[in-house]
């Protein structure tokens, strides 16, 4: 039975979350098919290394006719996909038009019809059984190590007309992140303990040095010290990097909800009783203004 994977690209390459989806798909099906909007045929034909037997090149995920054709022609029953907003939207369209059930926030797929999902913003892990035969699994970030494969990939191009959109884009603001916060391996995050926006230079320096993304707590973005996209937590972005630096952040439960699936948490806080230390792997008690320059020096 073939399993279908939606491929997400970051800077012209298949991203890690899609690779992990592919590895999971290889565990569930005898063949794995990918769908991409990348037009780079040469690159796409190398995706056998990531575990794909076939790649379908389409021009827009939102063009549901292309996806319907793939699903019907190949009798697709399982789709595994990164859980981005775009793929949540596409999955919803497929769910309604082809009667798939969607399981989101998947941490582990146990067999075709059961999975472990994270709920209550990561506080709870639930085993869920899908009653339907046709299922879309939307996976969390960084849940397994992706494998490499030695497959030959067929490339199939599906032509379609451009979609008509019934809205007008007035302005596009590009967020110039060298490293996107949700994909970053290392995140340097700071809170109200930094006292003001003028003090973020050392945070940015540290992030640059570590090739990390920057993040912040909610009050920091509410006060306009940092942009809202950097806000992590219950009401912000949920991230699971390999290393999360929490600098001058108290560790409120709503903040932890967005970051507690990070592999290693390093807390820097001048209050030894700050609750964040309870969830930390490494703790440094002291003034951030003294410690960050020291870390920068140690890294040099």
């Amino acid at each position: 039975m073939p399993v279908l994977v939606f491929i997400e690209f970051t800077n012209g390459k298949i991203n890690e979350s899609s690779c992990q989806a592919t590895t999971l798909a290889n565990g569930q099906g005898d063949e794995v098919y990918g769908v991409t909007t990348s037009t780079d045929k040469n690159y796409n034909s190398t995706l056998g290394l990531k575990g794909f037997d076939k790649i379908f090149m389409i021009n827009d995920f939102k063009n549901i006719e292309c996806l319907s054709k793939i699903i019907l022609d190949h009798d697709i029953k399982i789709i595994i996909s990164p859980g981005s907003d775009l793929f949540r939207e596409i999955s919803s369209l497929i769910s309604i038009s082809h009667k798939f059930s969607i399981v989101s926030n998947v941490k582990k797929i146990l067999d075709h019809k059961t999975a472990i999902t994270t709920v209550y913003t990561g506080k709870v892990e639930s085993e869920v059984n899908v009653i339907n035969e046709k299922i879309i699994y939307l996976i969390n970030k960084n849940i397994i190590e992706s494998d490499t494969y030695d497959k030959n990939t067929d490339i199939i191009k599906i032509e379609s007309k451009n979609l008509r959109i019934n809205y007008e884009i007035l302005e596009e603001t590009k967020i110039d992140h060298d490293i996107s916060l949700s994909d970053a391996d290392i995140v340097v995050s700071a809170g109200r303990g930094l006292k003001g926006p003028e003090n973020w230079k050392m945070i940015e320096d540290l992030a640059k040095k570590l090739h990390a993304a920057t993040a912040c707590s909610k009050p920091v973005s509410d006060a306009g010290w940092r942009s809202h996209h950097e806000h992590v937590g219950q009401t912000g972005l949920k991230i699971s990097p390999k290393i999360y630096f929490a600098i001058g952040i108290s560790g409120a439960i709503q903040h932890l909800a967005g970051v507690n699936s990070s592999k290693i948490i390093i807390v820097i806080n001048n209050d030894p009783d700050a609750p964040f230390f309870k969830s930390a792997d490494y703790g440094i008690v002291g003034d951030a203004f003294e410690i960050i320059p020291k870390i920068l020096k140690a890294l040099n």
Partner: protein
Amino acid sequence: MPDTTSDIAFTEDNKFDSNNVQFIIGPYEDYALARAVELKELNKEIEISILNIGLSENDSLLRKGLAIGADKAYRINSEPFDSNFVAQNIANFISEHKFDLILMGKESIDYNSGLVHYLTGSILGIQTFNPVSYLDIENNKDIIIKTEVESGINKIKANLPLILGCQEPIAEWKIPNMRGIMGARSKELIVINPTDLKPALEYIKHDIPSNKKEIKYIDKEDIDLLVDELKLKNL
């Protein structure tokens, strides 16, 4: 939704344990309501209805929504089994009542699926945007929004009907005042029967993994140690 500070627990028969848990309007839905009320303050012709799929214990939260400024409340009398169930019920409700602008939260804070707006939009064929951090109405008909896309943020002009999944900084949360609370008593709260539909997902068991970690303190005079530790772990 359970309050964000509550300790989540489940009973032996796998049900959510609501003992000692305070329930709130979900924070994202709270943003949506706050923005709707702000828009109504600018244009008195706007009528706001709020809808919940849940049991009667939610009525006090619906009253709170009325006190914040909604005109009418509806409750579909069922547990909200899963995203599909909720979306089908909302879609049926919308097609009966004909709303122009449907504001939801970006996601729920219990199952965090972020699907109900897209599913509802797919059922009804209504344009859906998520997450939306800015919403305004110009010339009494043009809907101006800002929404996150992969590459950044798009400012968009769209036509009604629309479904939007809201997130901050679309508005600031509102607290009801005394006048609102008094006024809410005489507003309508209408209970509707749910669509007959079986849940698609079955939750077999819930585990609460411990977040307690073994912490290693690093002396601030010995920062090199931290760098060494991370190198040792290949990070």
